């Protein structure tokens, strides 16, 4: 019996203690007509060896392509120690730290994560993480609506240059809460969201403006001007950021005169594998004044009966298990393991290491763009500076070119025509520190052949 330890003697002794004749007797309160049948659709059980072989064959089937996709998930080197430690049984098989005295390991790790994220973003406070960046952006929008008490409209400005998958998730999650997401077009020459594009909305009531840095096109926004404009209009600023980029770029806490109010981002680039899209880890930071509107777990440092420092869940009065229908969100977990990995990753990389990762990613993308745009008919679509992604215009629709590249073992980027019909001949490419010069050469060679 897989994972069930009871011998037949155990079962007899246990039934005797209960005063039941059989295990079936224990289900005597369940109406007979509701009992399940044979479950014929389930296969016979297999051994660990057999399932491992089956899954290993399937995993091999998907491996081996050279990938230049980013679009919200980034392949970075992950130090061996990160998951060796994060999957230690003491982290892996613990649960929510309700018994704080018996969970100091997890609790201190979260406190360190909160500190790391606050320092990286330049903000006052952080929570213990949320599911991912996209659902986290939805939480940030709802938080801004609660925090901006002067705004009554339920409206938020959402630039089109924000990752379309994030916009979809925000729409799905906020749909039934009287939230209106008003989109802001991007400048088609620059690939950014200029303040001029917002001018139409001056004087209108919006709770917040979302600013992505870098935006979905990899382009760098004029965050200072956008932040100051939003604040002048009485809006809060929700910063959507890439944590690797923050090693090089102005942290949201220092944007404009007053800094962003809420920061959200995807921690996946910090030591979390691509893993088909999850589990990832949304990080969420804010100014101190908004902390009581923050959703999710928050850990605080306090003292024990003897005055020694220790860590505990705090501000629980915001949460569903206390507030029920009046909670800030229904969220009741964080992404514990992924958050642990991100914490270990940032500790291993340190300030210089993270900066080097960011610098190599930027430089490799510059090289990739230079090589590819040297091919006849390929050009950079937007003039703005970028971080580690860029949009290339091809002489043919991306939907024709990308499958041909895939046939030759290269996942060449993201087809922007999927979300932006006007960009059907554009592909979003990415090169992190893991895409070395040989990889870039190979892509350039194969792309030239495919386009020839």
């Amino acid at each position, binding site marked *: 019996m897989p994972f069930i330890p009871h011998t037949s003697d155990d079962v007899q002794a246990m039934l005797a203690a209960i005063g039941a004749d059989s295990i079936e007797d224990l289900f005597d*309160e*369940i109406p007979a007509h509701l009992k399940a049948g044979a*479950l014929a659709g389930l296969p016979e059980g297999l051994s660990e060896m057999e399932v491992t072989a089956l899954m290993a064959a399937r995993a091999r089937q998907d491996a081996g392509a050279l990938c230049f996709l980013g679009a919200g998930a980034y392949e970075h080197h992950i130090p061996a120690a990160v998951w060796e430690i994060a999957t230690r049984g003491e982290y892996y098989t613990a649960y*929510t730290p309700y018994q704080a005295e018996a969970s100091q390991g997890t609790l201190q790790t979260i406190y360190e994560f909160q500190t790391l994220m606050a320092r990286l973003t330049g903000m006052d406070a952080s929570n213990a993480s949320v599911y991912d960046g996209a659902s986290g952006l939805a939480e940030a929008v709802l938080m801004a609506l609660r925090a901006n008490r002067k705004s009554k409209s339920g409206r938020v400005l959402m630039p089109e240059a924000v990752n379309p998958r994030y916009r979809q998730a925000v729409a799905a999650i906020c749909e039934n809460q009287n939230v209106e997401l008003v989109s802001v077009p991007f400048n088609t020459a620059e690939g950014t969201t200029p303040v001029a594009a917002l001018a139409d909305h001056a004087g209108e009531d919006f709770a917040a403006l979302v600013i992505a840095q870098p935006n979905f096109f990899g382009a760098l926004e004029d965050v200072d001007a956008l932040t100051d404009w939003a604040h002048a209009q009485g809006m809060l600023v929700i910063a959507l950021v890439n944590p690797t980029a923050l090693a090089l770029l*102005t942290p949201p806490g220092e944007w404009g005169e007053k800094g962003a109010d809420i920061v959200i981002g995807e921690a996946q680039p910090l030591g979390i594998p691509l893993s088909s899209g999850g589990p990832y880890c949304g990080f969420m930071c804010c100014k101190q004044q908004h902390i009581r509107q923050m959703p999710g777990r928050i850990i605080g440092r306090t003292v*024990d009966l003897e005055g020694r420092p220790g860590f505990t869940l705090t501000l629980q009065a915001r949460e569903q298990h206390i507030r029920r229908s009046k909670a800030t969100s229904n969220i009741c977990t964080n992404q514990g393991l992924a958050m642990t990995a991100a914490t270990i990753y940032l500790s291993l990389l*340190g300030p210089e*290491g993270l900066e080097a990762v960011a610098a190599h990613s930027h430089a490799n993308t510059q090289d990739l763009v230079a090589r590819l745009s040297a091919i006849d008919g390929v050009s950079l679509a937007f003039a703005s500076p970028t971080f580690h992604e860029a949009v290339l215009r091809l002489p043919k629709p991306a939907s024709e070119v990308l499958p041909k590249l895939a046939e030759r073992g290269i996942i060449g980027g993201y087809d922007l025509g999927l979300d932006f019909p006007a960009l059907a001949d554009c592909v979003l490419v990415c090169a992190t*520190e893991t895409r070395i010069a040989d990889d870039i050469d190979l892509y350039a060679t194969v792309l030239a052949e495919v386009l020839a």
Partner: protein
Amino acid sequence: MSTQTDNQLIFELSRPGRRAAAQAPRALPEERLSAIPQALRRKQRPALPEVSELQVVRHYTNLSTRNFAIDKQFYPLGSCTMKYNPRGANRAAMLPGFLGRHPLAPESHSQGYLACLFELQEFLKEVTGMQGVSLTPMAGAQGEFAGVAMIRAYHEARNDDARTEILIPEAAHGTNPATAVMCGYKVREVPVNKEGDVDLEALKAACGPQTAGLMMTNPSTCGVFERQIDGIAKAVHEAGGLLYYDGANLNAILGKVRPGDMGFDVIHMNLHKTFATPHGGGGPGAGPVGVSERLKPFLPTPIVGREEDGRYRWLDQHDLPQSIGHLSAFMGNAGVLLRAYFYARVLGREGMIRVGEYSTLAANYLLKRLEAIGCTPAYPARRASHEFILTFAKESKTLGVSAMDIAKRLLDYNQHAPTTYFPLLVPECFLIEPTETETKEALDEFVAAMESILAEARDNPELLKGAPYSQPVRRLDDVKAARELDLVWSNV
């Protein structure tokens, strides 16, 4: 003299200029960054720790040991199903081909992964008796959200927009009312009677044209099977509402009773409970949803479909135009789903049926043993499901010892405490869930610990009030934590 085994913070170990040099690429000359305008550049490096690789490994290894965990202790946390998390599942999900797969990789490079997900969808349908499954919700609470959002989408698609209320038994998890509100509904609580069943007459009276649906668990959070489920389903359905099954307690009935057969229209499953994926100190989980035929068009996307030629592909908004949409950037917690897939394949049909049987056996045995040493069950006349409730109201009144004191003292006996003070309607309670993976000896040790603690409560109640004594810290000052917020470390 402090050593690294104290709970120093990683920041306190930092020394300027120290690096884990193997872990970063070489520094690049500044001109390689010249394309980034200076105005957008960070002026000061973030104050991340500057430590060696060994310091990091030692720090987090030592920190991990300051946790209770299933791998170390019995962990009978009610409603959380802290069963063994197979190591084989972890290894399988961490295979390089799975870890390295980009979420937007073309289907041609994803057939192995999609095959696992497709089969998992089919297994979950079979074991729950539902007609359609979407794996995308990233946690139980997000599964609940998806479920109630589908109920809403269903009513709206029928232009049935007078339905404004979700009914919820008062014993329900806090996520249920919080979710209903996130979906734009008002919550009406339904009372539970002395035997732990829903007050059916009160439920019938609450049902009406305003009823969008009912959210409930079965077995309920009272640790008993809701015997009137047929009557409940009939009352809600006759009023035009839909039935939502909170799968938190699915472990109790896995293989024995299927939510679909009980009349539920939509359910979520917590794979980190019933399918043995790790809790990871609070996540990540996975909360797939299953639906009856009429809710299939509304499932959250993407879903894995299979073509006639056997190829797998993603079904998206194009295939399901009425879908409630995407709930994450990509397609949920893939790594968790792969672990659940491994578990389902190892268990197979027979193993799946045994889960409900042996988790129920363990709970009823533990209940009888604890009753025999003087513990008070909240529902003495009832069979336990996979979990049960004890109340220490008597001890609280006569000895001044609370359920929390007993819980803290259990830690000194190297036993993780059960869930305390939930459900809210039973005073001074423990919700205890032993799971099917614990030996009889482990259950007996817990009973022995409880017997000893009850004796201490009578002889020396002060001892319990000061507990725990054996942990890295004594009882923590939660009031100070909330009043003098210290959420991030400041060196100043």
